[in-house]
């Protein structure tokens, strides 16, 4: 157990610290890299809880795909952090007010945290037995009980894709596109003309290069 505890504290401490660094780092690229570190440690915490499938998906989706694109964009941007900070100071009072209100609400809620008496029975998904891996358990739920939500989420993502294309794709009329079929099906006779050239006469006009 002691090993797990040590791991837990290492992972969570690094996660929190890198979370802080995300907003504290001066360089936006460093911020993104710290964000990635935070994701990674969160994945470690998932592993400690025995949710290995979620851990791997977190790494694959967030670290492997989303954050790469994020980093990609941030690297290309020329962000002046001093300028951003000046804005932050101006909006600090209002931001702080909203934050404090939310914090107070959370505290109030946790103080008055009373579950409805029937919560135990109402819990939607009872834990599967130990013999079922959590990958299988997730699949069992996702494709039966939550199939509707799963499909709806799929359509939402489809809309996001259509939207990105609709709002940004512009067809440029004068771009030359490679037509691989044409390229590959070209015959030797269509492109090469073998000409016997007599010495001192050169290529005749009619056979010349068109």
């Amino acid at each position: 157990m002691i090993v797990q505890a040590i791991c837990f504290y290492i992972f969570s401490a690094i996660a929190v610290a890198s979370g802080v660094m995300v907003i504290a780092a001066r360089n936006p690229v460093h911020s993104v890299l710290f964000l990635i570190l935070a994701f990674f440690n969160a994945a470690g915490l998932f592993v400690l809880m025995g949710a290995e499938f979620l851990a791997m998906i977190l790494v694959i989706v967030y670290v492997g795909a989303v954050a790469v694109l994020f980093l990609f964009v941030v690297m290309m941007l020329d962000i002046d952090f001093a300028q951003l900070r000046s804005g932050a100071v101006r909006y600090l009072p209002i931001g702080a007010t909203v934050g404090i209100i939310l914090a107070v609400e959370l505290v109030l809620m946790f103080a008055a945290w009373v579950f409805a008496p029937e919560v135990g029975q109402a819990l939607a998904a009872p834990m599967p037995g130990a013999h079922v891996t959590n990958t299988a358990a997730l699949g069992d739920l996702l494709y039966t009980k939550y199939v509707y939500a799963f499909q709806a989420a799929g359509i939402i993502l489809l809309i996001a894709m259509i939207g990105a294309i609709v709002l940004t794709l512009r067809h440029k009329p004068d771009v030359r596109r490679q037509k691989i079929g044409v390229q590959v099906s070209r015959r030797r006779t269509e492109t090469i003309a073998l000409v016997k050239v007599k010495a001192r006469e050169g290529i005749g006009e009619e056979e010349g290069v068109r």
Partner: protein
Amino acid sequence: MPIAPLPNLLAALPEIFLAVAAMALLILGVFQGEARAAKEVSWLSVVVLVVAIFMVGAQNGVRHVTLAGMFITDGYSIFAKILVLIGSAFSLILSIRYNERENISRFEFPVLVLLSTTGMLMMISANDLLALYLGLELQSLALYIVASFDRDSARSSEAGLKYFVLGALASGMMLFGISMIYGFAGSTGFDTLAAHLGGQATPSAGLVVGIVFLIVGMAFKISAVPFHMWTPDVYEGAPTPVTAFFSVAPKIAAMALFVRVMVGPFHTLLFEWRQVIWAIAVASMILGALAAINQRNIKRLMAYSSIGHMGYALIGLAAGNAIGVRGVLIYLAIYLFMNVGTFAVILSMRRGGKMVEGIEDLAGLSRTQPAMALALGIFMFSLAGIPPMAGFFAKLYVFMAAIDSGLNVLAVIGVVTSVVSAYYYVRIVKLMYFDEPAAGGAFDRHIGVEVNAVLMVASIIIMFFFLYPAPVVAGAEAASAALFPG
């Protein structure tokens, strides 16, 4: 390995049909190429919507719960879905010619409208907070995109961005509320929630806070005060057919969902949420009446008008009983036709091939285009709630419901704000009939057969509703009875 049995998909047939048809049309559009496909896909989408109306109509009013309890169809959902589908179909018809003229004709537009409509139907049929949220997001995401569909126009892009940012905020609030409800009640299913909350003496504070956040999210979607800030800008900036769409289908769907959530799982907490709805309704009615007075742009005016109308519809919800729900549904049905008709006129306001949106541009319309002036006059009187137009009956039913449940103050405020708002509606009629024609001359003549047809249908329905109100009233009656089986 055994395969899980299929859930009963028949109940969700219209939604599945719409989603699949949208994808098929998307493929068709992609393979046909940009220029040719837009018009074809648009008309096919209208056909799809009409087919979906028949599919919904073919469902009997029996309550079906399927897809692991997340999806419900009953008499209520049938009525609301038909309204939404009619609204979407009309908006699509209005959009075709406009998009071509404005050079924003692309086949993705009808596809997005179809997907958005799918989301609306899913909202109406939601029987679980998760399904509610997903339907809402499906609808909203497509709406954000169509709002900025005229992507080369700064106004349209601004409208889309504003709508997106504020919409995301509202979704966040709603999710927060949903998570609170889940935390304190232990379930997201409407049936389970209703069963558990029914047995409780006093609800926990966390649950009430969760419901309030849920109401905030819903109020944003129907643009009720104080969550209306986006409405005028988005209405003004978005392309006009999109505005027409925004003002009917999503409003009806969100309102229908609002009613279902409030009187379904949280019916036992009527006392807690009624005060919130009461305040929102009053604020919306007052703002809708006062803020519209100074507007010069007709689309902005319609934005404030729709805020006010949502306030009236909320009166029915505040009543919280079958009569109130019936009032809301009748209101939505009539509101649908009034708004579609008005926007058909606004879409025809073109001078020299360009859109004009000023209210002054309508001056003297009775002399240049008497038929259009007559139609717009009917819609304005109806929006103002002057008998014998349909709008009067809409208000009558919700006020009756309010008085029936002892919400006399609400009814009185409603009547007073209707009188105030009549000022700006009637002013348009005055402009059209008693002022000299506007400087630019008459509007362009050729407004299109399909726009004329929509205009005609809408004005006939609004004008002669009082002669034969039975189908709408009876339908609404049956629909509201489905929510109150007891």
